[in-house]
């Protein structure tokens, strides 16, 4: 009754994001920092799709990222597909991995997280295995310099970030999202209300996987020379989790805000003293869990502000 059109908030956020990252390279020339910031914003948002809306924390989220990065690079290496198609297929590869890992949902929260972490380590150890050197390059990394295109990959990553954000807005505002929220609170009651929790959860999981896979593909394109460690390091999961938690999971702007602020902070100061950041992030997690489990966004929701 008192509501403006439901699409207005999401559209404003998307337009703002696009505008900011379209203009930013003119103001600040280390595009690699901007690119990485977008990567982490997309990852935090992608992780939010699962964790924020279902409560399942994908500790091995980096596994999808690495899968996307390698699938894209291998397609570029062994086929003549256009890179952008390879990036899309990188997202698809992550979805396939997500489907294979679907049975993990038989496990309750923390065991799901640990098993997911184990799964990501398996993917990493397979991709980085000496025995697969002829295919993946093994521990020696992979090179796709011949398609190196900083601007195109930058735009692609921006598109992925926008897609992730649009998905989060959909989850937040739609009937589908209502079902997810209900499931998050009480899966049995949600089922009794008629919510197909298995299907809803799987869709959220695959959407989350797809975002990480796409981001991995675009990241690989931007780096163009990388070692398996660079796209499979647990630090990527850690950053995505901390950023999303800090901003506030279950919202649309929370993960964006968290990732932008903390990564800017990291890029500004942290690169020269990373261990301070590990300490700070650790402390931040402890404080958030104890005092602000719903992140920055909850400072607003507590005041009854309707945060998107």
């Amino acid at each position, binding site marked *: 009754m008192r509501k403006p059109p439901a699409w207005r908030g999401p559209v404003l956020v998307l337009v703002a994001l696009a505008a900011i990252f379209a203009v930013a390279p003119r103001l600040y020339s280390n595009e690699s920092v901007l690119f990485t910031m977008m990567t982490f914003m997309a990852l935090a948002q992608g992780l939010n799709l699962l964790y924020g809306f279902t409560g399942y924390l994908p500790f091995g989220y980096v596994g999808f990222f690495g899968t996307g990065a390698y699938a894209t690079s291998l397609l570029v290496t062994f086929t003549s597909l256009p890179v952008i198609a390879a990036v899309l297929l990188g997202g698809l590869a992550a979805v396939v991995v997500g489907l294979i890992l679907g049975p993990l949902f038989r496990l309750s929260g923390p065991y799901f997280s640990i098993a997911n972490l184990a799964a990501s380590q398996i993917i990493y150890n397979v991709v980085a295995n000496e025995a697969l050197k002829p295919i993946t390059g093994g521990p020696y990394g992979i090179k796709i310099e011949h398609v190196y295109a900083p601007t195109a990959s930058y735009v692609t990553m921006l598109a992925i970030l926008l897609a992730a954000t649009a998905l989060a807005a959909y989850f937040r505002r739609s*009937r589908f999202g*209502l*079902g997810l*929220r*209900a499931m998050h*609170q*009480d899966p*049995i*009651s*949600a*089922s*009794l*209300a*008629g*919510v*197909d*929790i*298995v299907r809803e959860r799987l869709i959220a999981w695959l959407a989350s996987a797809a975002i990480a896979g796409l981001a991995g593909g675009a990241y690989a394109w931007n780096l163009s020379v990388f070692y398996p460690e660079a796209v499979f390091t647990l630090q990527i999961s850690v950053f995505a989790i901390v950023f999303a938690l800090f901003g506030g999971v279950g919202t649309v702007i929370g993960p964006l805000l968290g990732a932008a602020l903390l990564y800017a902070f990291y890029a500004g100061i942290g690169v020269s003293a990373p261990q301070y950041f590990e300490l700070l992030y650790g402390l931040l997690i402890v404080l958030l869990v104890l005092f602000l489990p719903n992140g920055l966004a909850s400072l607003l929701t507590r005041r009854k502000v309707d945060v998107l």
Partner: protein
Amino acid sequence: MSSEPLLRLENVGKRFGGMTVLHEQSFSLAPGEILGLVGPNGSGKTTTINVISGVHPADEGRVLFEGREIQGLPIFRIARLGINRSFQVPKCFRGMRVRENVEVAATFARRGAADIEAILAETGLASHADDIAGSLTVNQQKMLDLARALATNPRLLLVDEIGAGLNPAELGGIATLLKGLAARGIALIVVEHLLDFLNRVTDRVIVLGAGRMLFEGSLAAASKDPDVVAAFIGG
């Protein structure tokens, strides 16, 4: 009344680990009928409800709803067929508002439009519609459970110990509500310890003891049955 009952259980059994908690349970229920389930703790009352609602699927036997086998179906399918329930310990969406709790069920059950405001009024929650569910009292949360179930337009409603902790006036209100639902054609299975309360809503009860049906008939007759007496004293 048609020849096919709304709900029929045929030799339904349930085990947990090595222990059988429900033996060869068979009974049926017609639309608009209220069936009371009584028995000591651990006799299988809640298990029966869990089996019918799909929360814990049966290991043996058949559960037929409108002639269709439903054992083994996921909970949401059973709910969409028109079976719903409340819980002894209420399980509402604690972080959502009261109205949203009901909206979820009205949205997903796909059983026709539900009048959310009417359901809220019926269950005495109208004045709390915008409160967060977790902030309600336990009794209010039980009513919210019921409201959530009603929003799916059920044909069979399973009510688990809704009377515990209520004062006589509140019990009277619930009894009226349940009878009103039955009058609309909704079949009810009511699990209850409070026999007075049960007596007010139905005269057909099944007495369970150690997972077996000991008696089926009126409450008054049940109290004279030696098996029933033994079970209650033994339990």
